């Protein structure tokens, strides 16, 4: 993997230009020839006027116009393509790189970034960056080359004509300023749009609730409020365009009047004004993009800043003081609240961590996973609320691996026994079932069980489950545990679970009872802790009252 994302903004732009230098050299050549051929046109138009007056129209070569049209067509097309191509390819490469970096980074390094933030960066920020290298660079080149070619030609013809461009340039500058000034409102408009969208999403999920309370009117009013705010911002942000766009034509007019005055004063011919106006329209196209260059560049720069922020957090040092290398994972030293605890694990058995809600079970089990990762152990860890990809159940279980052989058998068996066979008439159809966005088409409990199967078929030694049976009723739980305990393939695996249910605890081999202040309150084999007088049995008795 070539890393492109470690640089600062300017060095990155430079490196990018070097990476694709042959495209850019070609593009600059095309731009040069484009403007060169375009700059012949005003002279040609003037010539037309002169020849009419002197009645020499026959001397005009018609083919010249068509050659010019073709040259413009050719060079303009390629100047664009040669700028666009590297930008698009770069965008793809960068997106892929960030995806791979994210995939290999400990999730806690990017815990400050919500799913929405990641989406924004991968989709929008890289698009802004592409806009910068594909569009802003092109237009900067366009303006510079146009100026290099046009200015000497006009100067050679009549030096005073250069001055007559002032009103146009002034109007374009004013236009650019207006566009930039109103830009923040476009941003606000987008935010407000997101609010309206969010409101519709909420109304959708809550429609039943709304209808039951007959509160349609209140929600209608609320919708009008949100929508009204968005549309107001739309209107304000459109003011920038309303006043600025027609300014350009005004500038063209003013420049033309100025030039007409020069023509009259110096006693030049009317055809000289035709020559001038030819350049006026030619320069217009590159100038029009002046404001966008500013906007796109600042957006690209800001996007790069956000991307770098994400990269920086992915690269933060994740090795913590308490990390240690272990030969055996039967006694782990882990941080717990402001202390450390020594967590004893019984290998190749069922370990369960119990404790009150909020005592730190999830935190502890998270640290176990982190430590195993640090030691390159083979493990699979399923959180309390697992995520399902918008794909088939088979893809969600096998995660890109080919479903076959023993693993497929295990998956099928689990589907049948975990109560997932109800989802479709046959197991194969269950496997082929699409689960929808974040598993929307299956219930939360079913999604969780699919994730559990995912970790069972993964070829790992350690299986870590945070509260795996919370949304499963007691009978199904019993059934699941029975299957798992009996299966030969799973016997060699070490299970580490959290639970607050007696039914789960009763089925495990090793119990760790934790408490926020005291850390590990009690630890030992099930037979000791449940059947004899112990804090654990006391705890469950209390729960049952």
């Amino acid at each position: 993997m070539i890393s492109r994302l470690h640089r600062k903004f300017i060095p990155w732009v430079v490196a990018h230009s070097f990476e694709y230098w042959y495209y850019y050299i070609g593009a600059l050549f095309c731009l040069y020839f484009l403007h060169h051929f375009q700059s012949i046109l005003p002279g040609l138009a003037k010539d037309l006027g002169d020849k009419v007056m002197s009645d020499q129209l026959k001397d005009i070569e018609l083919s010249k116009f068509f050659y010019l049209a073709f040259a413009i067509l050719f060079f303009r097309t390629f100047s664009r393509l040669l700028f666009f191509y590297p930008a698009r390819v770069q965008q793809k490469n960068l997106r892929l790189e960030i995806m791979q970096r994210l995939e290999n980074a400990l999730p806690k390094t990017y815990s400050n970034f919500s799913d929405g933030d990641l989406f924004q960066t991968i989709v929008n920020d890289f698009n802004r960056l592409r806009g910068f290298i594909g569009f802003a660079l092109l237009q900067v080149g366009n303006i510079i080359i146009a100026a290099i070619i046009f200015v000497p030609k006009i100067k050679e013809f009549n030096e005073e004509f250069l001055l007559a461009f002032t009103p146009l340039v002034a109007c374009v500058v004013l236009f650019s300023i207006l566009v930039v000034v109103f830009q923040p409102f476009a941003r606000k408009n987008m935010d407000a749009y997101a609010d309206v969208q969010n409101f519709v999403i909420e109304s959708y999920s809550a429609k039943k609730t709304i209808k039951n309370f007959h509160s349609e009117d209140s929600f209608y009013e609320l919708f009008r409020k949100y929508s009204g705010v968005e549309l107001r911002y739309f209107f304000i942000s459109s003011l920038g365009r309303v006043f600025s766009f027609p300014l350009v034509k005004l500038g063209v007019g003013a420049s033309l009047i100025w030039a007409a005055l020069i023509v009259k004063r110096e006693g030049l011919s009317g055809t000289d004004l035709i020559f001038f106006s030819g350049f006026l329209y030619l320069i217009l196209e590159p100038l029009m993009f002046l404001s966008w260059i500013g906007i796109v560049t600042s957006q690209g720069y800001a996007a790069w800043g956000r991307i770098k922020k994400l990269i920086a957090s992915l690269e933060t040092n994740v090795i913590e003081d308490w990390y240690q290398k272990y030969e055996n994972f039967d006694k782990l030293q882990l941080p717990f609240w402001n202390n450390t605890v020594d967590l004893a694990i019984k290998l190749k058995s069922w370990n369960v961590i119990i404790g009150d809600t909020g005592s730190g079970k999830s935190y502890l089990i998270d640290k176990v996973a982190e430590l195993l990762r640090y030691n390159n152990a083979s493990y699979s860890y399923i959180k309390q609320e697992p995520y399902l990809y918008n794909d088939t159940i088979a893809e969600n279980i096998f995660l890109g691996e080919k479903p076959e052989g023993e693993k497929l058998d295990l998956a099928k068996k689990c589907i049948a026994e975990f109560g997932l066979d109800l989802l479709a008439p046959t197991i194969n159809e269950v496997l082929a079932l699409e689960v929808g966005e974040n598993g929307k088409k299956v219930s939360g409990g079913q999604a969780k069980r699919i994730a559990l199967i995912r970790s069972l078929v993964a070829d790992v030694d350690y299986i870590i489950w945070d509260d795996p049976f919370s949304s499963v009723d007691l009978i199904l739980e019993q059934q699941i545990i029975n299957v798992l305990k009996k299966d030969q393939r799973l016997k060699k695996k070490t299970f580490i679970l959290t639970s607050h249910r007696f039914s789960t605890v009763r089925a495990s081999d090793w119990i760790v009872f934790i408490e926020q202040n005291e850390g590990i309150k009690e630890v030992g084999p099930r037979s000791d802790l449940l059947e004899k007088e112990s804090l654990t049995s006391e705890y469950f008795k209390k729960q049952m009252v």
Partner: protein
Amino acid sequence: MNILKNKWFDYIYIPNSKLLIFFIILALVSASVLGYYTPIIVSELYDGFDDGDSIMPILYALGGLYIGEYLASVVYQLGISRYVQKLLQHIRSKSYKKWILTYDSIGKGKFGSHNYPMGEVIARILNDTEAVIEMVSSGSFKIFIDFAFIISSLISFVRLNTVSGVALIIAEVLVCLALIIGSKQMGKVYMAVRKSTGHLNRSVANLSAGLRHTFHTPNESFASTKSKAAFEDFLKKQLTANIWDASYFAIAESLFPILLALLVIVFPYSNIVEMAIIAAIIDLIQRSITPIKEIASKISGIQRAKTGMDRILEFNEDLDTLPHSEDGDDLETIKDFKALSINVESFTYPSKGEETSAFELKDVKLTAKSGELVGIVGMSGSGKSTFLKILSTDILASNSLIKIERSKHSNIEFRGDNVEGMSTYKRQVSIVSQDSHVFSETLKFNITFGIGSEEEFEKFWNDVVSRIPYLEKWGVDPEEIVRPNDLSMGQKQLISALRSCYLKKPIVLFDEISSGLDSELEEALRKLVLLIQKNSLTVIVAHRVETIVNAGQILVMKDGKLDGVGTHSELLNENATYQEFISQVRMS
């Protein structure tokens, strides 16, 4: 056709906008007049170079022309922006209202707006109107005023020199047609890009959200492999589109020399001897190239907007055919509710295609009085949730009958196959479940839904705070905005229970959450149930024994049937399913 036209008019015309429309039309007319005088004044200017007179009056006229054009443009765009702002608010609100009034119930045939899943509703109400906004921001509306100007300029020029004027008109019309036809072809390419963009967005959203979860399981680089495919597809489609795009605009750019060539060709027939006419026509060509260049993209913008409007219209028309609640307060909550009885003879879920669902709800009955607490217990798959859904009319079971007894009026019957009638019943019910929604609005709004007065809410709030210590401990302020993501499941349930308590519906359905409640929250919820019970018949799907120990009756469900009915002590003695339930619950 006529009806459709009238409907269109209904959607595009907004009341009280006559003045706005007047200004828009005024601007268009002014632009045409200015356009008409432009070639005349330009040719006079060039004439003026040759004779000795001052050209100042002509330059003033020309300056006035340009300023007039600027003003007309500004007024026009201002009017359009304002109109679009009003129009969209009008259409969106209308669609939202229609949609919110329809019912989403499962039943036989086409019931409810299930044809419109969430993404579709957002698309119809928001994204489709967005196309109109885009028309403004991309300047598509500008094309009308630009063409008004150019067309009248061309007409005016024809009077100066017929042959070259007509030739120019013909050439420009042909060019416009060619560009529009070309852009139609491009439409397909762009559509492929749009599709691919959608795919890319969905893939990134889907995959990036899963990264944190699958990191800790061997995953064969699932996310990057899948996303790579989406990125590459997008790249391919986009590059193809770029080729079309770049060459399309290049063609537009090469129009100037081609139109000049046209002038050379028609010269021998046009009798032009004055340079002023040549200058005027070159000026005209230069002015008209930009609008012509833009015509295709603007027209596709207009088409997109029209498709958007068509879709909204279709959405609205479709919603009109669906069962919906009345827009008004004629269906009040029944004040003298005495008792409810429901009898579900049978219900099976509608089958999808070949699949047949084995589950059937059969002969489930319940009769209960106001103020009574009814418990429902059973294992997963016993049908208790389905029964609750029928009670709440989330499901309309055609073979079912609900009766409401009233103390001061005659009783009302609701048949499951009568959708319209059911809406009256629905209004008597409130549900507290895991699905009950909490909005990112103030807590007060979440409880009252904007119903009732300030004083009423204040009285209610002080009352519940004094009865439920948890609320004080939680420290929530009713005026504060609630963040649903920061709430635990129990807190959400508490808020929706407060809502039911405040709105005092005759029938309250309660789907208890099975785990994850701390003891204080559990106590708070239990107290609320007692408060609700005072005014209502309360039906609870229970997961804890404490909730139903004192219930007037408990329904035990098994395999879609009633397995037993009775009080806690009765069932404990004689019902095996209930005994099993209790022993399992006790153990957990």
